[in-house]
């Protein structure tokens, strides 16, 4: 079928066997470029939060008590550090589970001798764990958002509300997209199993997931802990 001996190898260029300059998967390069853009996205959101810190005309406020006339009645600082610390732990643990999920997919064909090995090697288990922890984080966020609204802080109340809800909302949206993505991988794992050849797909999802975690590390410190 080929026109010349030099072209014989083209047949070998089967699906997925393309030449690359770097020897790296194009999708991995693309996800890192995407993560670069996300750095700037969240930098803009975080900058705005920090710019507007302390400039809200009316309360509630994140770390300070709000007294009349800035509020109708005296309001306590609205951020709940214990609850948010818990959700931060949850997200950090989800990253660990994600790493284990990837390792499980890569090592699928390795012999597993002990129960511990089998546990570590179950990609479904770790993908479930990551998804559930991610969903738990979202649950915490939902709880936080609704309780804030109850206490008088909505996205329209003041600069703090606008910048806080937009920043954490965008972050939460990213987590949600991640959970859906991981859920899809989980579905594929159930349907036909994730082979080591699929590791690249899990790797890309993992990079996205870890980045979303890393953004939260920045948010937790800059918004919650620094007064």
């Amino acid at each position, binding site marked *: 079928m080929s026109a010349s001996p030099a072209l014989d190898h083209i047949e070998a260029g089967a699906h997925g066997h393309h030449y690359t300059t770097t020897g790296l998967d194009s999708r991995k*390069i*693309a996800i890192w470029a995407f993560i670069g853009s996300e750095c700037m996205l969240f930098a803009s959101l975080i900058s705005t939060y920090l710019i507007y810190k302390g400039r809200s005309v009316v309360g509630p406020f994140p770390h300070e008590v709000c007294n009349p006339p800035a509020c109708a009645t005296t309001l306590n600082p609205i951020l709940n550090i214990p609850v948010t610390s818990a959700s931060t732990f949850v997200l950090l643990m989800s990253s660990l589970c994600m790493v284990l999920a990837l390792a499980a997919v890569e090592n699928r064909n390795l012999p597993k001798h002990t129960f511990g090995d089998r546990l570590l090697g179950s990609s479904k288990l770790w993908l479930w764990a990551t998804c559930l922890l991610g969903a738990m984080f979202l649950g915490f966020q939902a709880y936080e958002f609704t309780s804030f609204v109850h206490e008088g802080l909505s996205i329209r109340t003041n600069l703090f509300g606008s910048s806080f809800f937009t920043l954490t909302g965008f972050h939460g949206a990213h987590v949600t997209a991640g959970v859906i993505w991981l859920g899809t991988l989980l579905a594929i794992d159930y349907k036909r199993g994730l082979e080591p050849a699929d590791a690249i797909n899990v790797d890309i999802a993992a990079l996205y997931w870890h980045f979303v975690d890393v953004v939260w590390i920045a948010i937790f410190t800059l918004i919650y802990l620094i007064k």
Partner: protein
Amino acid sequence: MATVAASPTYAGTESGEVTGLWSWLTTVDHKRIGVLYLYTSLFFFLFGGLEAVIIRAQLAGPNKTLVSAEMYNQLFTMHGTTMVFLAIMPLSAAFFNFLIPLQIGARDVAFPRLNAFSYWVYALGGLFITFPIFFSVAPDGGWFGYAPLTTRQFSQGVNIDFWVLGLQILGISSLAAAFNFITTIINLRAPGMNLMRMPMFTWMSFVVQFLIVLAFPVITIALVFLQFDRFFGTNFYEIGAGGDPLLWQHLFWIFGHPEVYILILPAFGLVSEVLPTNSKKPLFGYPVMVYSGILIGFLGFGVWAHHMFSVGMGPIADTVFGLTTLLIAIPTGVKIFNWIFTMWGGSIRFTAAMKFAIGLVALFTIGGISGVSHASPPADLQQTDTYYIVAHFHYVLFGGSIMGIFAGIYHYFPKMFGRMMNERQGTWHFWLNFIAMNLTFFPMHFSGMLGMPRRIYTYDAGQGWDTFNFISSIGAFMLVISTSIFVWNFFRSKSHGAIAPDNPWDAATLEWSIPSPPPEYNFAEIPLVESRYPLWDLTHPERTSEIPHTHEGWEEQDKAADAKAVHIEKDRRTAAELGIPMPTPTIKPLIVAAGIIIMFSGLLFIHRPSKAIAFTLIFSGAAILVGTLYAWLLTPLEPEHH
């Protein structure tokens, strides 16, 4: 010998049709997508030009009443928005798409379907933001939409909604394309094509993609804040709530300044292809050209507040940004000198493309000189918001970007369409354009210095502005004529132009080593590159003897199984005959793009008492988007074969 034979067409795929609307709607071929970008952006260029002509007709004399003040606001807003986002950027994208894979010796971009998606989002987004003007509800807050003017309080109507949503849509297109081209340039270069052997156009485009990746997210957020303020009642730009009017300006210009380098660097790259070819000499100082391009890109992130010298940032900020702005003139100036030295001692061939390229060197320099004068905050205090600034940016954007793009079109038309453009008409186009452009914009330096503000729809007589405005308007009408010649030439040559040889300009880079127009697979055999000027190594080795030739990178050869040393290809066989797997055409990118547009348009209705329309559009758009995206991602790019 112009025959009325059909232009050499793109070779067909195994499964799709060769011609016909459906083949264009489903194409994932970078060359076709490039041509789509070219047509669409030329359309918007003409549309934006028409808006400008009406503006100039209105300003031709004092106190004219051709258009109302409100319509005038829409005209200058849409002229700027159209030219920046719908004309110049996509014209550059036409070349990114068509040229980059060819210049690096690749068969397509890294993600062909994503590529098609970028185009359709742009096309549909362009329509979205353009059609309101036919109902007199076009965006009217200036192309840079300063808040709080553009907040709901001061802009109640739907105009700014179209602007905000339209720009968000267009941003998606640019970002997706940037990820694609970054990956393509990093990962799909032919063996031996190391970074310092890449053609300058590819290099400048590479820098531009990073600028897009870093700058567009910032305007995305600025627009999100404006969107949220307008649709959901947030306080980002609400002065009463403590909002800072400068927040918008800073965020916008952190994007806006890199944006202007996004607009000019591709044109610089095209000039760096045209000048050496038509001087029959290698580009002077290639490494320096690369580094200065990178430096311009990098420094471009540090100058943004020079657009804000009059807002009262304080002496430290003013000084810092003034200094960085002066600094960025250096790498730019270096490029001008290198182009001149390229031509010096060369054997110049004054093709139409060459004329436009030299035109850029001259006119961009003029624009650069006024630019340097803006860099000084005290001087800029007089210049800002006057026509002096309008003069500056039209010299760099029209005299710079557009001229460079015209050079690229004349130069690459033969490769794209297999026919030559008419050189005589090209010469007429050039000279009329050159004279008209200067007639239009040079007087603006003077009216600006005499205090004529920007964005006014009339002016009183006797302030010293009348003559200058009149001359500008004459120039604008002349531009209509010169552009018409170009349009005529473009379309006539597509069907009647002389059949083009594969390398009509005797150029040096890989895209000229394959037929005009290229077969769908580009290269039957991927070339093994050993220098910066692969074709001149074959045809004019004396020109490139001083440049190092190595086989560095050739060990990749065993991976590119169908590779062979640089050679000229005349092959017109199909991909099937050669056993080259080609991506399957698909309509899914278009549908996903449509889903996004539908989703965004739902927001236009969110303020109605009944939310039904808004939610229907938003949810159905989202459903189309997500559903088709899943189908897309789960479908392999190429048909399975054994």
